[in-house]
């Protein structure tokens, strides 16, 4: 039951961040395609935004790790 909960946390908890990172990446690529000179600026903002989206998945991971190892 506990293992099931851990699996469910990771499965459900990563759906949102996955969609978010996909959207950020696609929009970033679009922006670079439209304005290649701004590539470095777009990249910085993109990586920052991806790190925020990733943090949500990391929260799920922390909960899963706490359940697994504590």
């Amino acid at each position, binding site marked *: 039951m506990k293992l099931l909960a851990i699996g469910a946390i990771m499965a459900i908890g990563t759906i949102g961040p996955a969609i978010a990172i996909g959207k950020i990446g696609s929009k970033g690529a679009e922006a670079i395609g439209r304005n290649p000179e701004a590539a470095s600026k777009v990249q910085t903002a993109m990586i920052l935004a991806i790190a925020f989206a990733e943090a949500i998945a990391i929260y799920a*991971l922390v909960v899963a790790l706490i359940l697994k190892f504590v």
Partner: protein
Amino acid sequence: MPKISIKAEHLFSIFGFDVTNSLVLAFITALILIILGIIFKRNIRLMPGRVQNLLEYAFEEMLNLCDSVLNNREKTEKYFPLVATIFFFVLISNWLGLLPGVGSLGILEVHGEESILIPFFRAPAADLNFTLAIALISVIAINIFGIVAVGAVTHFKKFFNFKGPIQFFIGILEFISEIAKIISFSFRLFGNVFAGEVLLIIIAFLLPFIAPLPFLFLEIFVGFIQAFVFAMLTLVFVAIATLEESH
């Protein structure tokens, strides 16, 4: 399967003050940064040599990056030390945590049947105390900078506003968001670094040779990105807190 502990292992006590293996590496990080700083200050010259040139270029770029957020060179020079200190401290501590020997060198402690390895070193950010401490420093500094820049009354009006029910409720939300900042700061860094540790241990356990290499590269990148994110977020929050209300 090696044992994974979510909290830092206790090594010894000094006057009742527990020293964990994360704390040891955090102190080593601080020591390295202090020594590098002293050496650099001694060798500073008007005509820059090769190393000084490189560092000056790097700092120039970082100052320009801060300028693009704060829109003001004076402000940048005021708040740059805190942001840069957080960046370098987190960066060096993350990279030190990836060195061979960290997490693998230790003493075996026997508990009845099984014996548990107590490592001498552990990545500092893989301990929640470390990340929580930096998050607290960062959030408190943000509020102090805000008070100094716009005045205590204006700053606290953000949290306690009795103009109307809506403003009052917004004040409560601002207060909660301040606490949420601490939590998100500390858990983001802790989660990333600790997850990296677990990932490296498990990959090395499944396939000891060559396979961990790409993951090591990933962890070097993640260590840099997380230090960058931590510093940039602090900078952005400082920029918001020190902005004079103009409406």
